[in-house]
């Protein structure tokens, strides 16, 4: 018995894990094949080796002994590092959460009013149906496609409330995995970091299409079109409806037309992620133009929405997945399958955020007020862009063209800084940003633009 235990200890890493189990008194060799034979190919489990076996009997060893720490989220990790910093001039340009000029979180007035209305009505907290609040589903589709859109009138849109953008994307990913096994999703290079994770966890294969051109700090349009053309027919093309994250670079209306042409030609399915409706131009309608153009061409379209940014409802987790189909029958079937996917994820979505959105978007007075607040928020960001550009242009004598700051759209700006330069931003200047060079202008005040300009100029010119 002892000799067989010892021989296990000197065998492969998989066996050494089981010897650890034995040394803690489990004496259960039957365990090994069940538990540990996959850890060589499983990236989540780290193998251990043990110098010697101890025969100390202790209480149960955890089944999850070999589990390693997950890597910190690159975006949220920035905020954590920022919090830990005590420097008085520190600046958080990491996560895309809107802040006022005083760099405080902002609760929209319309949200406050809607909350009050809900309280007065004293609504119960009963389960929503799996597909979410009907009133919310109605207004969210109307907001995106336009209330008079034929696709809505003809009941050709399957809309299901989702847990913000993430949850809505995950529902769509699961639908793709189930009904288009093997079909690929094409995502822009770069794109929001969590897109890849969502498709990976949903077991949907993905590849990238060229998007950002570092030379121009603009759109690599030819590369984008070529890569979309080269994709296998019937691929899903993930597009940011407006205010591309992280680059802030959006196609022009003409370019959108050509993108739609190519997608139709190759029988691809356009898959929009609209997380910033209103934040690009300040107008909710204008920012939906790209999606509406595709729909107007009679294309079947998937569109994920989020109200985290434009209504400031980050923590309520409110969004939606919409699938525009060519017939009401298809829409109804697709909706039923989305529900079937949602039920074993969370049964039914949280009610509060849905009620707020339904009240704000569904009430004409509140909706009008929202439009005004939206313009104000987007306006503040535009002002900050202008001030930053002015500061950079006046302080930097090298003649570098900083106009991309003005051309880029939405909350984010891709500065073109590399990782070492970003580290300098943080280490020397206490400016926190993601390592891909993205800054969130929503976290920048007019007062801090000059300081930021100094930091960027220093990092760009003086660091490798």
């Amino acid at each position, binding site marked *: 018995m002892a000799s067989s235990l010892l021989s296990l200890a000197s065998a492969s890493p998989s066996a050494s894990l089981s010897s650890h189990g034995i040394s803690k008194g489990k004496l259960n060799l*039957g365990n090994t094949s069940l538990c540990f034979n996959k850890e060589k190919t499983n990236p989540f489990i780290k193998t251990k080796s043990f110098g010697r076996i101890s025969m100390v009997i202790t209480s149960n060893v955890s089944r999850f002994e070999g589990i390693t720490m997950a890597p910190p989220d690159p975006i949220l990790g920035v905020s954590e590092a920022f919090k830990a910093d005590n420097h008085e001039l520190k600046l958080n340009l990491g996560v895309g959460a809107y802040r006022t000029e005083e760099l405080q979180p902002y609760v929209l007035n319309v949200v*406050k009013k809607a909350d009050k209305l809900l309280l007065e009505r004293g609504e119960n907290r009963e389960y929503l149906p799996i597909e979410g609040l009907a009133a919310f589903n109605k207004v969210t589709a109307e907001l995106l496609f336009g209330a008079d859109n034929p696709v809505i009138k003809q009941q050709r849109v399957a809309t299901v409330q989702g847990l*913000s953008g993430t949850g809505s994307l995950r529902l769509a990913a699961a639908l793709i995995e189930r009904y288009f096994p093997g079909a690929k999703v094409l995502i822009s290079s770069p794109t929001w970091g969590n897109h890849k994770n969502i498709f990976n966890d949903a077991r949907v294969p993905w590849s990238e299409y060229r998007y950002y051109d570092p030379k121009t700090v603009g759109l690599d349009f030819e590369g984008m079109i070529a890569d979309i053309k080269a994709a296998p027919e019937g691929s899903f093309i993930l597009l940011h409806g407006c205010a591309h994250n992280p680059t802030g670079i959006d196609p022009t209306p003409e370019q959108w037309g050509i993108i739609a042409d190519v997608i139709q030609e190759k029988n691809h*399915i356009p898959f929009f992620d609209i997380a910033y409706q209103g934040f690009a131009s300040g107008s909710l309608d204008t920012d939906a133009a790209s999606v509406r153009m595709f729909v107007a061409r009679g294309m079947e379209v998937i569109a994920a929405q989020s109200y985290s940014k434009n209504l400031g409802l980050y*923590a309520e987790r409110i969004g939606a997945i919409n699938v525009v189909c060519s017939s009401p029958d*298809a829409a109804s079937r697709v909706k039923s399958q989305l*529900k079937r996917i949602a039920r074993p994820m969370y049964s039914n979505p949280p009610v509060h955020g849905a009620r707020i959105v339904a009240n704000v978007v569904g009430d004409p007075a509140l909706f009008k007020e929202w439009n005004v607040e939206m313009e104000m928020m987007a306006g503040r960001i535009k002002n900050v862009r202008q001030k930053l550009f002015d500061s950079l242009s006046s302080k930097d004598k090298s003649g570098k063209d900083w106009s991309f700051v003005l051309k880029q759209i939405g909350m984010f700006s891709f500065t073109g800084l590399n990782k070492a330069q970003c580290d300098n931003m943080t280490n020397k200047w206490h400016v926190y940003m993601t390592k891909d060079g993205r800054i969130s202008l929503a976290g920048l005040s007019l007062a801090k633009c000059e300081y930021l300009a100094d930091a960027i100029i220093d990092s760009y010119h003086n660091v490798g």
Partner: protein
Amino acid sequence: MMIMWRYLRRGMSTSTRVRALRRSWWDHVTPAPKDPINAVTEAFLADPCPYKINLGVGAYRDDDGKPVVLQCVREAEGKIAATNFLESTCAAISSKLVEESAKLVYGEDSDVIKEGRFAGVQALSGTGACRLFAEFQRRFYPDSRIYMPDPTWSNHHNIWRDAQVPIRTFHYYHPDSKGLNFVALMDDVKNAPNGSFFLLHPCAHNPTGVDPSDEQWQEISSLFKVKNHFPFFDMAYQGFASGDLERDARAIRIFLDDGHLIGCAQSFAKNMALYGHRVGCLSLLCDDKIQAVAIKSQLQQIASTIYGSPPIHGMLAVSKILSDPDIKAIWLKEVKVYFSSFSFLFHSLFTSIFIITCIRTIGLMHLLIISTCYKDMATRVQRMRATLKEALEKLGSPLNWQPITNQVGMFCFSGLTPDEVDRLAKEFHVYMTYDGRISMAGVTTKNVDYLASAIHEVTAFDQDGKILHTVCA
């Protein structure tokens, strides 16, 4: 799929191919079968009959058949409406909630809590907690299966199936005795391969209402030790089985004492009447704090691609109730104190604010609010069980209805056949799931007599008025 599509295209003429190109991408998507539990509610809602009864979904109703809203929850929401909160506050509140949730399950004074030997994350109610665990199980034990009781909540099957973990069942309910099939259960536990994952209902089994006794739990726990099985508890009804939160956690405490490192999904949908807010918790017991941190990070990563972070509203409401003095006062008025020991604690809590400011206070108060409000809800359900049984017996029903009062929790496994369930819906406008599960929370003093006569009609006589059953023991 694409090969099929190309094949279809080749077989068509040009004009049909052009038409076909415009056909939907979604032609091959069939309508999903209706969720068996929600379908009951949908049918109920569509029924215009004024005296219809919904015994489908397990959501608590008061004696008027209305959903319950705790006043203190309402007040809490008033205070938190449009609060300016920072992301850091959310994280802190979430951690607090996880800690309080863990105390409910493992015990206020548990070493596990004191030493931080658990990985806990807030989850989207019970469903979300189970799904997180199922995904976690698949990721770290890709070859494992899950053993579930037969029967179990129907969504358990969906959850582990969608997480791609194969499912096996173990014997649980004995249809003849309408009780626990303990011998077969133990056999199945013994025959499962060592180190298997088991899903257990710690109290108020859904859908049967049949729970093992303490002695039986002890035997199960001992056998689990021998077999080195992993016990995963789905705790959706803590407080609803006996009216006592601590009592309802007995099964888990037994396993804890035996040294098992368990996993537990908790739901606050029922016991805080916060159904639509989706508040719950997943916890896994660990060797030590370091491992707890690692496992928590993995759970958060799994959650990050399903929904990102959990919704804040419900979490804030609970937290507000516990920390705001005005709302505490309202809650105090609302709540009936049944136990003299609790009464003493009330006085000392409110007269020594400066002394009792630590976590222990909040924990006790949390227990108090839930247990006292809970006692009302659990008592009403127990009373309805007795009333329904009496009504059936008074009607001269030849069947044995003892199981109604033997079973615990929100649900009663009535033994009604699918045909009888159908008749109840069509002829009597009484709605329940096809397995004959009755949600006792939907039974009120106003509808219990009607319900009894409806059940008597479909069980004592068939449609032609012939007697169906002979008197049985």
